[in-house]
C-alpha cells in the first residue's frame, strides 16, 4: 500500500536539477565574477595579447 509520504513525494517531486556549470572570470575593474558556461558560448571570443594582458585591470 502506498504511504502518504510516497503520494506527497510523487506530487511534490522536484524538477530535474539543471546542470549549471559556472566559470570565474576577471572584469577590467579587477572584480572576479561567475558566468554560466551556456552564456559564455554566445559571447564574442578573442585571444588576449601580451600588451592587453599587462594592462587588463585599469588603474582606478
Amino acid at each position, binding site marked *: 500500500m502506498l504511504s502518504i509520504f510516497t503520494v506527497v513525494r510523487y506530487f511534490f517531486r522536484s524538477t530535474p536539477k539543471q546542470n549549471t556549470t559556472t566559470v570565474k572570470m576577471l*572584469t577590467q575593474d579587477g572584480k572576479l565574477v561567475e558566468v554560466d558556461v551556456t552564456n559564455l558560448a554566445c559571447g564574442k571570443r578573442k585571444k588576449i595579447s601580451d600588451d592587453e594582458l599587462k594592462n587588463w585591470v585599469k588603474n582606478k
Partner: protein
Amino acid sequence: MENKDTSRRQFLTAAVLAGISAGCSSKKNPFEGYANNDVKSSGKTVKLLSVDGEIVEMDEAFLKPVPDLPPVSNSEERKGIEGKKFVMVIDLSRCKNVKACQSSCNHMHQVHPGQNWIKVLEMKDADHTAPYWEPTTCMHCDEPPCVKVCPVDATFKRQDGIVLIDSDRCIGCRFCMAACPYSTRVFNWEDPGLPKEISHKEYSCETSVPQKKGTVGKCDFCPDMTRKGELPHCVSACPNGVFFFGDENEDSVTNGAETFRFSELIKDKAGYRLMEDLGTKPRVYYLPPVNRNFPFESGLENVNADDKKNHSK
C-alpha cells in the same frame, strides 16, 4: 476495522490536498527565479578575461558576483596563508605626498582620527642632498622585536610573513611600541569613536576592526584582502603606483597596473631596507628616489599641520 477506515480517510484527504496544491502551483520551480533563462539582457556589454587567456564580450546582466569568503577563525587568522611570503616594495621615485594610501588605510581600518598607520615623511639624508617623500608602513619584520617583547602573545608573526595584533589579547602595556625601531605602532588612548554597527562587531585580527581603547594598532598588510587575492588598500589607492605588493615565493610584485619580478626589481633598482644593521629583516623594501617622476616641491601642498608637528619632534 475502525482504524482501517480512519487510515483510508487520511490517505484520501492527503491525496486530494496534494492534488489541489499541485494543481495550484505553477510549473515553474520557485527556486529557479535566478536561472539564466529569466535574466533580461541589459544591453551593456563588458569584457571578461578567462583563465585560459581569452577575452569574452558578454552582457553585464549575466554576471554574478563571486560570493565573499566565509569568516576565518582566530586560530586560522594566527596561522596565516600557507605557502605565501608577502613582501612590499615602495618606489620613492614615484611618491609626491598625495597621501591617498594614508586616507584609504584610515578609512578601511577605521583608524582613530588624528592617528595614521601609514605616514608619509619628508626625508633628507644629509645637508646638501635633495629631500624626498617616504611613506612608511609596518615593516612586518622577519625578526620582529615587537613580537619578542609582547608578554601576552597579542602580537604575532604568521607563516605568510605578516605581523598582526590581536586586540582581544592586547593589555596595552606598549612594550611593542618601545621595541619597534620604526615607530610604526600607535596607541589608542581614547575610544576610536566608531559607529555602533562597527564597534559592536567581533574583532578580527585580519581586518584589525574594530580598534579598541587601550590597545595598540598598526599597519596589517590587509590580510583580509590578500586572502581574497586582492591588493592591500594603500596599494590600490595610490594613483602613482608607489606601492608594489606580492609574494616572495612567487617572486612577483604588482601595484595593480604593473607587475615585476621581485628579485630583479630589487637588484636592478638597488632596493634596500630600513635600518638593515639592526637585523630585524623587514619585509618592506624601498627603491631609492632617483629619476623622479615628480619634483619634491609638488608634494608640499599636501603637508598639513600634523606633519609639521611630527617633523619638529
